[in-house]
């Protein structure tokens, strides 16, 4: 048998708990169906909550964010980092000419903000757009990279 630690549930004690009902449902599902949350983590479901899906990866020296943004022009995408939050925005205006007289503008705007891990070199962030995927590389700062420390023996 598996023991599960008692957890204050907002269903029973809404005034004390800081978690939302959604968090509670997520926790319940994680406990009851652990395999399901693995599938979810591996992107088995279309489970993104924003306007486009993103992935976060870790490399030895950097974090990598990938965002699926098909059909944009490079100049219509913007990447901003402020206060530990990465914001990716795509804003596109296309002129549609149905025939010679009728002209209209189609506008599409999507945006997503992701809170970033700490200890990044904000000035060394690079972004690249290829095959409809925006890849943002966020180098880790020196202090979090594994370092060897010599121990002096007296």
């Amino acid at each position, binding site marked *: 048998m598996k023991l599960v630690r008692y957890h204050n549930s907002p269903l029973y004690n809404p005034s004390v708990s800081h978690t939302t009902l959604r968090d509670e449902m997520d926790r319940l599902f994680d406990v009851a169906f652990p395999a399901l949350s693995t599938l979810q983590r591996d992107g088995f479901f279309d489970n993104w909550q924003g306007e486009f899906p993103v*992935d976060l*990866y870790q*490399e030895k020296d950097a*974090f990598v964010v990938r965002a699926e943004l*098909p*059909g944009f022009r490079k100049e219509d995408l913007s990447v901003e980092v402020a206060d530990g939050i990465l914001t990716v925005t795509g804003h596109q205006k296309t002129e549609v000419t149905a025939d010679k007289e009728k002209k209209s503008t189609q506008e599409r705007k999507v945006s997503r903000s992701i809170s970033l891990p700490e200890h990044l070199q904000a000035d060394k962030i690079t972004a690249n*757009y290829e*095959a*409809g*995927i925006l890849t943002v590389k966020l180098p880790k700062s020196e202090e979090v990279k594994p370092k060897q420390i010599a121990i002096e023996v007296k």
Partner: protein
Amino acid sequence: MNLLTKKETPVAANRVVTPRYDVHETAEAYVVTASVPGVDKSSFETTVDGDTLTIVGRRAATPADWTPVYREIPQADFKLVLEVDRRFNREAIKAELSQGVLTLTLPKAEAVKPRKIEILG
């Protein structure tokens, strides 16, 4: 259900999803546009077999030294199967890929192009 017990099976290998797509018609052709981000130009297969048009796009894998922390992008290839009739010219299908959007142009057969008929007399 078997799905839940097979924890170690890589989900990526054979899964396919239908891409978001549109079909519209111009005077000259039927145009199919499909969103297929992350697929390289060389990893597409477009086949017309009888009444079926099939487009398969394989996603490029992420570098092996990237450890996933959080994932939303489905680890699946794209497959779009459309039922078509014979009203377009099969020999002249054109495909174009630009920033993750595939545009397929199926030129109309001469027989279905709009024709203006002169009224005589």
